[in-house]
């Protein structure tokens, strides 16, 4: 993959010391010297989070009737936001686990951040299934636990599989992320000058002392965790897609859903990583660690999975004709021309047309253009779930029960609110924890130079 003319994954001139200093200085900045841009961004995100609190409180008092849902469109924003967020999370696992197994050294400077993004996206996703319940305080009915009614959850239902998948995914992602953080927390502990800051990181670092005997076990477990996370991430979104594919609704009941959803998840996840990484890199001057090469590689992955997603759309349309099923054919034509057609064509524009620009190197290496493309893909992926869920439900078998759906203020407030919560967590993460893996970058310096004191040939990326 790497040839000697390519831009390095780490700018030359860095030593073990400069890497430790540069990355740890961001969280270790004195609170009073917090950059103004961070404060402004955090304040705006925090307002968004408050909006979520407001919308959720109002929801818990008044029930789901405050949303625009009706019969037959009983699933709308809550489920589509859930799918959108969980999909965004998947890129983090893909970057940290799958690229680790494939020994892609460019993952090193983005994996920590992408994993944090996964956790925060999953936290957001997890809110929606609870919020969409009529009686949210009874959500634990989904768990198998000894109860006086002598009942079990329906283990043959994808909705129960979903609970297990999401909880496992959140737990394993958290363990994987924390495990990767421990050596860096030790660095933070040793670099902190304030005694309380030192104790804070020290407690989290668990007493890590960089012992070779510990590294030996650590690496073996880390690799196995990556090997576990890889099929896990695929299983999670496949199960999410089965929530729909099991339902006998035209537009849902399709065997292509699992791979199509997994590709869509990775697509939106990479778009979100780019949307967050490009401003972060600029703001904190991390161009040395997150180089053009990273942006370009992420753009290439995005283009590839984007084509898989486009194939999914093509197949959906093809089956609308080839299945010979009148309801499916009606559903397909309704997507093109019905009430939600403008959103369908906007989705095609965002997810199929716009990513084709990534064939050109100019678009892959230009930060601003890439940022705009990534935002459009995020919008497109959100619209995709809107079309799948709302359009399919709104017109099913009986014309007498057709009903269109329109979001209310509360639907939109919840969506904006989760964006606020997500960004609040991202801002806090960047401020408090090292957002780039320090020890793995040191390892990269070691591999690139032979001795970490000066990089002579930074382009010596290991041949694939």
């Amino acid at each position, binding site marked *: 993959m790497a040839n000697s003319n390519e831009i390095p994954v780490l700018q030359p001139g860095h030593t*073990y010391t400069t890497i430790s200093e540069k990355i740890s200085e961001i969280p270790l900045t004195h609170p009073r010297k917090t950059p103004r841009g961070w404060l402004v961004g955090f304040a705006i995100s925090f307002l968004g989070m408050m909006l979520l609190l407001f919308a959720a409180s109002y929801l818990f008092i008044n029930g789901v009737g405050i949303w625009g849902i009706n019969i037959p469109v009983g699933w709308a924003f809550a489920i589509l936001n859930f799918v959108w967020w969980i999909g965004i999370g998947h890129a983090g696992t893909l970057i940290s686990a799958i690229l680790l197994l494939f020994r892609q050294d460019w993952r090193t400077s983005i994996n920590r951040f992408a994993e944090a993004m996964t956790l925060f996206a999953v936290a957001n996703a997890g809110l929606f299934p609870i919020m969409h319940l009529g009686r949210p305080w009874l959500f634990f009915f989904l768990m198998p636990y000894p109860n006086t009614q*002598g009942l079990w959850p329906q283990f043959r239902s994808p909705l129960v599989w979903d609970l297990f998948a999401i909880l496992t995914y959140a737990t394993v992602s958290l363990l994987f992320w924390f495990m990767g953080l421990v050596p860096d927390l030790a660095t933070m502990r040793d670099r902190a000058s304030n005694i309380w800051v030192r104790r804070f990181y020290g407690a989290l670092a668990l007493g890590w002392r960089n*012992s070779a005997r*510990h590294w*030996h076990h650590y690496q073996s477990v880390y690799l196995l965790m990556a090997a576990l996370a890889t099929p896990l991430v695929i299983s999670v979104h496949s199960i999410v897609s089965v929530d729909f594919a099991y339902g006998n609704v035209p537009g849902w009941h399709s065997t292509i859903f699992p791979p199509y959803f997994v590709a869509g998840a990775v697509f939106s996840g990479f778009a979100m990583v780019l949307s967050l990484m490009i401003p972060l890199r600029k703001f904190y001057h991390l161009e040395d660690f997150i180089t053009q090469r990273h942006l370009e590689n992420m753009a290439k992955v995005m283009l590839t999975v984007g084509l898989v997603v486009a194939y999914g759309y093509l197949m959906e349309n093809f089956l609308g004709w080839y299945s010979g099923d009148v309801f499916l054919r009606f559903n397909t034509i309704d997507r093109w021309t019905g009430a939600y057609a403008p959103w369908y064509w906007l989705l095609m524009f965002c997810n199929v047309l716009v990513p084709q620009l990534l064939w050109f190197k100019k678009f892959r290496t230009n930060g601003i253009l890439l940022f705009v493309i990534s935002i459009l893909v995020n919008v497109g992926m959100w619209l995709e779930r809107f079309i799948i869920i709302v359009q399919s439900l709104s017109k099913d078998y009986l014309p007498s029960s057709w009903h269109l759906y329109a979001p209310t203020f509360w639907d939109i407030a919840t969506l904006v609110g989760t964006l606020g919560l997500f960004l609040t967590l991202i801002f806090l993460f960047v401020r408090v924890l090292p957002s780039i893996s320090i020890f793995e970058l040191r390892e990269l310096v070691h591999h690139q130079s032979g*001795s970490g004191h000066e990089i002579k040939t930074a382009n010596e990326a290991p041949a694939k």
Partner: protein
Amino acid sequence: METNTSNNYGLLAKFPSPETLVNAARRATDAGYREFDAYTPFPVEDLSDAMRMKPSKLPYAVLGGGISGGLLGFLMQVYATVFDYPLNIGGRPLLSWPAYIPITFELTVLLAAFGGVIGLFVVTRFPQPYHPVFNVEDFQKHGSQDGFYLGIEARDPKFDLANTRKFLEDQGAILVSEIEA
């Protein structure tokens, strides 16, 4: 050994690069030292070989966790749907094992991950709020950033303050400090 136990945990030698540290670790093994450890701010693969470490046994913890998770998940569903609450739906088989696979898989992964992480905690004896090596000031400053250290512990039968210090200096150590217990 008796002479050194009072307040000396061992000797900590600093080396200028990972390569010199690997050489020193190899010579220490060859010289018969057993109770020693290397400290590097990132994993150095050659050290495992130089210190003759046995392959980690933690993969077995992951495997054990995975097998118990899989069995637990599958048997729980069998118990619930076949024995505890059998529900005849149009004569379909009670033991519908294909439908149990997703939860079986998820619990396999979950318990395997826990097996690995808990195993790591047990093997490394973490959380460990105190370790004597942190009493060396230079280690505190550089141990987790850019320093490469070899620490030979006083409990090693071959340990002798003067001789071991000389041995470490001969290997090219740039700084040798005593570790207070």
